[in-house]
């Protein structure tokens, strides 16, 4: 993991930049915020204007969605470069954009204490079978916390976890769940707090080892990316396999263990979360799960799969630009002819619900009716189709 801008420049191909501008042309943020330009940031880096980058706002604006690196002819890994810049800026004590007043970061920092004993299992549905150890560990992520912090928009994030547990029980799996699972550290890592991230990673790895899990199931793509790539980067090859719920469900369907007996008559469109899609190349599994459900008419947005647009927020750093992007994406979802937007990321869901429940008056911040659509997580829909 690179922690300095110069090191990152060598590793992320920044010096190979052709200045073609494809990155800025592709960037969903640059479309709504003309001040922001990945191409210009790269050029500044090459010219050695380090201070300008580290002290600028742009370094915190980037969504790290990887759409630019997807299209870059020179394979410049811009989001990785940005991450290293953020780490260095944080190490230098440069203040950055504060997400939600710093509340989420504060919670995550609090969890770095080894003595914390959380009480986070209240969401587990009554009668569900879970255990403390087992071959399959379900890494729940921050869902119980989201429900409290985002209370006003009623995200019902734990419904995702409940659906996953119910599905697992139905197919005869008793998942292990860690009572003291901590935040995976994704947000701290991507906001430059690498030391706190390392502490969380170490604590989680120890907890996972205690469960004896051979497979770690993730319902959050950000956690999925963090465990699969960043923990592996930190600790070497992981002693367990990490899978996302969509991949796991698709395997169960192949094995004939997961059957959808309830028909869901809806036109569904799938939004690719950036961590699951471009970062980890999982495009087919969620679509396969959706098309296996009878009654579901699967639609596609104009920009989907590797070309999918981001939900507009990275590590909770949200602003008016994010809202504009979310409206754009929701409109696109409606334009596909769908009446239900399914995503596989609890955070994407929260961001979409947030913009749709905007309380500002229409004269200040208009949310058009054609940007309103039902949003649901893949696991929730799958559980419904199984009659759970």
């Amino acid at each position: 993991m690179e922690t300095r801008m110069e090191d990152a420049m060598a590793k992320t191909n920044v010096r190979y930049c052709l200045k073609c501008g494809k990155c800025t042309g592709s960037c969903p943020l640059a479309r709504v915020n003309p001040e922001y330009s990945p191409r210009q940031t790269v050029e500044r880096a090459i010219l050695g204007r380090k201070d300008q980058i580290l002290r600028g706002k742009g370094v915190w604006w980037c969504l790290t969605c990887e759409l630019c690196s997807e299209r870059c002819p020179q394979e410049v890994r811009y989001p990785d470069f940005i991450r290293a810049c953020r780490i260095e800026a944080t190490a230098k004590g440069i203040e950055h954009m504060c997400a939600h007043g710093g509340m989420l970061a504060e919670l995550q920092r609090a969890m770095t204490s080894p003595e914390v004993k959380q009480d986070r299992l209240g969401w587990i549905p009554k009668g569900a079978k879970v255990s403390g150890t087992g071959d399959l560990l379900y890494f729940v992520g921050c869902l119980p916390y989201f429900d409290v912090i985002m209370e006003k928009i009623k995200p019902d994030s734990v419904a995702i976890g409940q659906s996953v547990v119910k599905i697992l029980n139905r197919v005869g799996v008793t998942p292990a769940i860690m009572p003291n699972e901590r935040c995976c550290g994704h947000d701290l890592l991507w906001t430059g707090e690498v030391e706190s991230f390392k502490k969380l990673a170490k604590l989680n790895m120890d907890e996972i080892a205690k469960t004896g899990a051979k497979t770690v199931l993730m319902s959050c793509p950000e956690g999925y990316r963090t465990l699969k790539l960043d923990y592996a980067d930190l600790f070497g090859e992981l002693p367990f396999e990490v899978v996302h719920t969509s991949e796991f469900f698709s395997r169960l369907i192949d094995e004939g263990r997961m059957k959808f007996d309830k028909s869901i008559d809806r036109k569904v469109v799938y939004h690719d979360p950036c961590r699951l899609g471009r970062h980890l190349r999982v495009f087919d599994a969620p679509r396969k799960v959706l098309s296996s459900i009878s009654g579901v008419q699967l639609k596609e947005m104009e920009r989907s799969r590797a070309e999918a647009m981001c939900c507009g927020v990275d590590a909770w750093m949200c602003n008016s630009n994010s809202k504009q992007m979310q409206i754009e994406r929701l409109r696109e979802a409606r334009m596909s002819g769908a009446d239900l937007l399914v995503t596989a990321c609890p955070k994407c869901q929260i961001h979409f619900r947030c913009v749709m429940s905007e309380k500002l008056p229409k004269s200040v911040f208009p949310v058009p009716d054609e940007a309103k659509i039902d949003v649901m997580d893949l696991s929730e829909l799958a559980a419904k189709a199984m009659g759970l």
Partner: protein
Amino acid sequence: MTTEPKIVAFTCNWCSYAGADLAGTSRIQYPANVRIIRLMCSGRVDPTWILKAFELGADGVLVSGCHPQDCHYISGNEKAEERVNSTKRLLRLLGLETDRLRLEWISASEGARFAEVIKDFTEKLSRMGPTPFRSKRGV
């Protein structure tokens, strides 16, 4: 490591801070475990600050404002109550005793009550012992 509890108190400018001041000018004795942070209104308290206080080693946090219907800004104390309640839910998830966060209505004339609240809170926190975050910081 000391076992004396540390309390961070967020008090509003109009009622509770004046109440604390009255406790002082009336020379009412109360434990020196409290650090007071004056805000214009208890409704200004952000859950982040409460969490940060705990994360930095506080054993208890007191949020104190004007009595209901008595807020200088009409409804600031109602907002404070709402925020304290949701923060308690977060503390419970984090495994902290929810009694470590306390909401009290103390008016400018209630110096004795301020002293009483601090005394009582200090005793309760002493019984609870330090938080898991305190050892992390070594404070």
